[in-house]
């Protein structure tokens, strides 16, 4: 079988809300499922595979399968934080290829904004998590974990605060064209550096938004994709990897994206230079910089120069990133940015991004997710997609 004929993304939907105090989490899952099915031109009765992660209420997929009235013959609830949904798409393609299902639904939804969540809150440790006794007293939260990676990157490679700020500036240039984006004002490097320091060296404007909402995608067998009316987007490569601190030789400036990216490019048979659009997980500015290096878009240590001066704004160079405004300006629903990364890549391949930020003749796109904490345990997932 042609590897490019494994599976296609036939439906994609991003919930327009960013604030949903009057909705339940299950309701948001149902709304995004309905949106993605309508986008694909399929019915819930066509779905025979269902994928969700820790944002879905209930035990694994059980409550959502019940609530959505699905009849799956394949379910999966791999949870690697924000990268889960990219892994789900990859696993859905594998399940389809193996004949376990034909139409897989992947949903994400949550209401962290309504629930008062923030990146400075301590995570709840499971009492039997092996790391708990050695981490819980020290106050590791999302932002100071990523901040330590940034601090070390600056030390090793001379990366500057201005270069990191350009990542936010780039996102803001894209977000101004997205009517649903939470933050639509264009900002400057000076604005970013004048915002309060939250965890040295990261400023408030270098943190993603906290938003309610969600998104869903549908992965289907190619024969089904060709019968639908939407442009066909094929998954041609994928990779996943887990990273952690090796206490005998620590290095938090390289992430597991090095391995997931290499696997995805090898499977797809393309190179970073072939990619014209990339969704790069942007929980914080440093997340983007490290992943761009690890995926091979530039050399390790050169990320600062690569992102500076607005080079990654659509139309400025051979590569555009996060044209929806990303997690930094648009949306980071359920504190998990992986789903929106897939959705904007699908928009670009379909030619349905905002005209101002649409990459011309976008034939190849990459979506990259990081879950957990970059300066600690994390999971990386990479998808490479092609317009048929």
């Amino acid at each position, binding site marked *: 079988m042609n590897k490019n004929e494994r599976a296609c993304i036939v439906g994609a939907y991003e919930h327009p809300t960013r604030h949903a105090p009057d909705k339940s989490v299950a309701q948001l899952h149902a709304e995004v499922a309905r949106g993605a099915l309508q986008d694909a031109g399929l019915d819930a009765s066509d779905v025979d595979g269902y994928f969700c992660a820790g944002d879905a209420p209930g035990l694994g997929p059980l409550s959502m399968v019940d609530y959505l009235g699905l009849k799956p013959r394949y379910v999966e609830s791999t949870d690697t934080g924000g990268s889960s949904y990219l892994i789900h798409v990859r696993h859905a393609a594998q399940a389809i290829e193996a004949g376990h299902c034909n139409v897989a639904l992947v949903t994400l939804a949550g209401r962290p904004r309504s629930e008062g969540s923030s990146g400075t809150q301590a995570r709840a440790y499971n009492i039997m998590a092996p790391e708990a006794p050695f981490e819980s007293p*020290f*106050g590791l939260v999302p932002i100071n974990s990523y901040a330590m990676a*940034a601090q070390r990157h600056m030390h090793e490679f001379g990366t500057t605060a201005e270069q990191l700020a350009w990542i936010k500036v780039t996102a803001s240039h894209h977000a101004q064209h997205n009517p649903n984006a939470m933050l639509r004002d264009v900002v400057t490097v000076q604005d970013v550096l004048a915002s309060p320091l939250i965890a040295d060296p990261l400023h408030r404007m270098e943190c993603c938004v906290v938003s309610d909402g969600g998104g869903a995608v549908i992965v289907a067998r190619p024969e089904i994709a060709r019968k639908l009316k939407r442009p066909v987007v094929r998954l041609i490569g994928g990779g996943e990897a887990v990273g952690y601190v090796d206490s005998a030789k620590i290095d938090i400036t390289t992430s597991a994206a090095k391995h997931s990216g290499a696997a995805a490019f090898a499977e797809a048979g393309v190179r970073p230079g072939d990619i014209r659009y990339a969704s790069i997980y942007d929980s914080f500015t440093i997340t983007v910089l490290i992943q761009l290096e690890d995926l091979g878009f530039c050399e390790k240590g050169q990320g600062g120069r690569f992102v500076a001066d607005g080079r990654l704004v659509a139309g400025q160079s051979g590569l555009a990133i996060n044209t929806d405004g990303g997690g930094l300006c648009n949306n980071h629903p359920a504190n998990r940015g992986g789903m929106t990364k897939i959705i904007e890549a699908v928009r670009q391949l379909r030619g349905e991004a905002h005209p101002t930020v649409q990459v011309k003749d976008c034939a190849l796109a990459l979506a990259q997710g990081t879950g957990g904490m970059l300066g600690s345990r994390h999971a990386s997932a990479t998808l490479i997609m092609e317009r048929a």
Partner: protein
Amino acid sequence: MSSETTVRRIPAPLINPEAQPFFQATAEGRLLYKRCEACGQPHHPPRSICPHCHSDRTKWETTAGLGTVYSASMLRRGVPVPYCVAYVTLDEGVTLMTDLMGFGNSTPAVGTRVQVRFVEAEGGAKVPMFGPLEAK
């Protein structure tokens, strides 16, 4: 009242049976780590099975409590009292997550030399934190 609110709350370590000897030692003012007798490599957090080679011949060793800041970050907002999380690489070659204290309001630079202190957490357990080198 105001001084009460500026005292940093250090959550009790969630001590499981495998971690018990580490915290018995911290209560006595000693910082332990583990080294594998099969492959010779150190590791932390301590495990009964070596994460490098999966041998069960891991043994406790005592550190001199001196190390170097690998990376650190002062968290300034969203918390009642700012604090500085860090990775410190001990002179014995193993890196651990900790907090830095005694450096005022700034994040110490990568490479800063530090020395262990044992700080009481909620519930009475002592946890290892690091501060400036003490004068001999």
